[in-house]
């Protein structure tokens, strides 16, 4: 049901962890399925230079978190803000239809973190 790339990210997710004094912090919970994510970003010169997260959720949620943070790293704030859940799903090479909503968690957490950064 999950493709190889999804399973790879699920098995060894990238960028896992927390951050002391992040420039931006976002926390979201999916009302749909109870998945939860905390995201931490470090921003330098309008670019995301470090990113960390913790995720509680299924395989799709974990893999989406991993690849979304990979994708965001190095991007400008504007570029990162433009990322949608479908970009994440595409980068993963697809998710089962029922699981597509799980990737929204990463999109939302990233947006929250950026919002927090901007508000400072």
């Amino acid at each position: 049901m999950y493709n190889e790339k999804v399973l790879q990210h699920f098995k060894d997710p990238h960028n896992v962890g927390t951050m002391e004094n992040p420039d931006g912090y976002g926390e979201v919970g999916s009302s749909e399925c109870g998945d939860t994510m905390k995201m931490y970003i470090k921003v330098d010169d309008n670019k995301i230079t470090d990113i960390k997260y913790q995720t509680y959720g299924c395989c799709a949620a974990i893999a989406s978190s991993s690849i979304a943070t990979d994708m965001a790293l190095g991007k400008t704030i504007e570029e990162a803000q433009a990322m949608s859940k479908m970009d994440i799903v595409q980068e993963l090479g697809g998710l089962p239809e029922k699981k597509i909503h799980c990737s929204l968690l990463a999109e939302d957490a990233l947006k929250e973190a950026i919002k927090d950064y901007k508000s400072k």
Partner: protein
Amino acid sequence: MGIYLDHSATTYVDKKVLAKMTQCYSETFGNTSSQHSYGRDAEKGVGAARAQVADAIGASPGEIYFTSGGTESDNWAIKGVAKFARKGHIITTGIEHRAVLDTCKYLEAKGFSITYLPVDAFGAVRADDVEKALQDDTILISIMFANNEVGTINPMAQIGQIAKKHGVLFHTDAVQAVGHVPIDVSAIGIDLLSLSAHKFYGPKGVGALYIKNGTNIEKIIHGGSHEKGMRAGTLNSPGIVGLGAAISLATEVMDNEFVKEAALAKRLKDALLQLPKAKYNGHPDDRLPGNVNISFDGIEAEALMLHLDLEGIAVSTGSACSSGSTNPSYVLKEMGCTIEQARAAVRFTIGRCNTTKDIDTAAKKTKSIVEKLRALSPLFADKGEKNV
């Protein structure tokens, strides 16, 4: 080779059972309705299987009706009694398999009234509750023998006595119990019992409904005079022969298997409960021998299950995040678990082929994956608390 710890979901077919079936698929392949030798040979096989099934549950062969599996047996038992009665009240529980629950909901929509009894924290129905729920128009009590998720066994003898005392028909979905724990329908006082071959090393797609002689029940599949006119359709003779062989074998090895599986289950449970914040679900003693169900705080069961799968270990989870909403196990919720606990529950079901080594490997891998997932989880903070 992987480690299969999902025997409650389904089993492989035992080699000896398969050999009998293969013979039937290619040689004694006749239609049991045919009067020539091919038909008579097939009928002989089916007759022997009917006696094997009857023997295993303390029934007589004329009370065994073959079906396409546990789901059809459950549908037949409940709808068949309801159709005969035309109206009335049915008592069941909130932790039944969906084959029973959905059938009851269907009948509810058609005007029958249904009581869904609660269960205690271990997942068992209280016999008292059954008696209290009885109404003048109660036509059926349908209570599962053993639960498929947590393995808890219900107080069958007590419920049987209540049913008998009040003259109400008693159906039990014994799909998880048959072939694993001893069952005697007449001693317990069961009128209708559902069983399915693929839960005890027989083939999928074949089951049986025990119907006590004289029970008022209608058929649900029409056409032809098979099974004394009660279940139409060309008999799946190879499947039925497999069911018969499998139930005989299961009865033969039952005592040894029970002891072995219970010991392996204890070993697995003890190992996993070394993890902090792991909750053991279900009854400590009155349960199916091979069932271990544990909620690991702060993790999502599907993630644990898939990690184990990547390591070649097959386990199951009650909950599944699908169609935009998580459906945490209704069984665990009925037992009083929180949604988080229900989402964190993993079921290991040990079977005939498992070894101590399998269990130790599974325990080790599970522990390290749980730790890894907890490190990833924003919900888990190990505060060194004791397990509940």
